[in-house]
């Protein structure tokens, strides 16, 4: 498989850099079960280019999947980028001639995505106090982007999301009183509907490229983009599962609610109440808890065999420990 991609990148270098463009670098950065990221570079007609290939390595059905296709992802990055969002520049969307399957190419952005580093590495000490505000500002350009036509993005609200995850939870057969109470509590506190906007859908520490000098450099991983309540994107980055050991700093483990909201308002975003963000934050913990249960189930049912999966099942108690505090505090 790796050889195929390398050969594809050689060919792509010629297509993008002109005849005779030589691949100078090609290496796989990361890979989940279904997605691969490759860094590559070549010397082309217009000089050196450092790029990222994102490609799907497993079959995908956009109708039934929660995530969007990579072509849709590329269109969203282009549309939000044109509207001023900090996103990578899309260099090329692959087609059949490239032989790389479903894939697109971005210009490489330097920086750090590891949440733990953003939260604790002294290199980020100087910018860290400003990051929550920057995250608020960054969301406005995304939320104000009119969704490009023809993408068929799913629309989600609080009730739909609770229904979806409660159905998944019931199907697991697990009996967890704290998750039950969180479902019940959140159903009684669903915020008033708002005019839905385009959402990133997975806006959290870990999916944002940060620069040690300038802060937010690029917002990555658009596969869960959808239409919904803007507070959903704010609540997800506040979910304790993504604070990397700093629960005292609610925004991503690096900042405070007030800075996130102030940045959002200063950049022209609509006014959002903290309780609304906290609703989505709590739903974020609940959602992650249910997802951990399903990852265990994929092992129990023999779909995956990695020892990782049952151990992730024991992370449900992390979300329960968070939820029980949130239930005590209220929204």
């Amino acid at each position, binding site marked *: 498989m790796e050889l195929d991609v390398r050969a594809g990148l050689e060919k792509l270098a010629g297509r993008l850099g002109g005849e005779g463009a030589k691949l100078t670098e090609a290496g796989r950065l990361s890979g989940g079960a279904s997605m691969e990221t490759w860094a590559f570079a070549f010397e082309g007609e217009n000089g050196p280019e450092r790029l990222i290939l994102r490609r799907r390595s497993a079959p995908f059905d956009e109708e039934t999947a929660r995530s969007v296709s990579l072509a849709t992802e590329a269109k969203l990055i282009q549309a939000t980028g044109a509207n001023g969002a900090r996103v990578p520049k899309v260099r090329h969307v692959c087609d059949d001639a490239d032989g790389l399957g479903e894939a697109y190419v971005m210009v490489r952005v330097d920086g750090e995505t590891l949440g733990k580093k953003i939260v604790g590495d002294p290199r980020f000490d100087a910018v860290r106090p400003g990051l929550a505000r920057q995250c608020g500002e960054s969301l406005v350009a995304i939320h104000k982007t009119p969704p490009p036509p023809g993408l068929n993005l799913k629309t989600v609200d609080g009730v739909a999301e609770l229904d979806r995850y409660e159905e998944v939870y019931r199907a697991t057969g697990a009996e967890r009183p704290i998750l039950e*109470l969180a479902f*019940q509590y959140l159903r009684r506190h669903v915020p008033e509907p708002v005019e839905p906007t385009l959402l990133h859908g997975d806006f959290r520490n870990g999916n944002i490229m940060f620069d040690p000098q300038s802060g937010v450099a690029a917002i990555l991983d658009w596969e869960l983009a959808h239409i919904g309540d803007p507070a959903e994107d704010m609540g997800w980055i506040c979910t304790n599962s993504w604070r990397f050991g700093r*629960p005292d700093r609610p925004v991503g483990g690096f900042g405070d609610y007030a800075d996130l909201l102030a940045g959002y308002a200063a950049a022209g975003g609509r006014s959002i109440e903290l309780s609304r963000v906290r609703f989505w934050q709590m739903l974020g913990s609940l959602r992650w808890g249910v997802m951990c249960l399903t990852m265990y189930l994929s092992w129990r049912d023999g779909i995956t065999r990695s020892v*990782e999966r049952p*151990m992730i099942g*024991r992370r449900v108690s*992390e979300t*329960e420990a968070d939820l029980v505090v949130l239930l005590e505090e209220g929204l």
Partner: protein
Amino acid sequence: MITHPRTEELVESVRLWIDEIRPTLDPRNAFLARVAANALATVSREITEGPAAEAAAVAGMAGVLGHAGDHATLNAELCARIRSGELTVETPGLLTALQVMARDQIAIDQPSYKPEGSF
């Protein structure tokens, strides 16, 4: 139970061995070996701390539900009565009981995790 070695000591010995060979493995297997060692550490904690945690959970649930029972029965009833809306965050003693259960379970599953409000 046999005490030479105790069950948790057997588990601990395997965990230590995995840690010992981890540096010799390729990156993917080294990662999985770390997960495996963590799994065994959880098993050890469940063996040593699980019985007290379960007893505390049974006592807490019995207090909220108003009658005695075993863990599985009380847990199922607690879930059903929360789901029906009969028990809520307002119910005296419910959140306190759930907090104790959450604290004991995280101590077994992921003791290094820093929950909301814990810093």
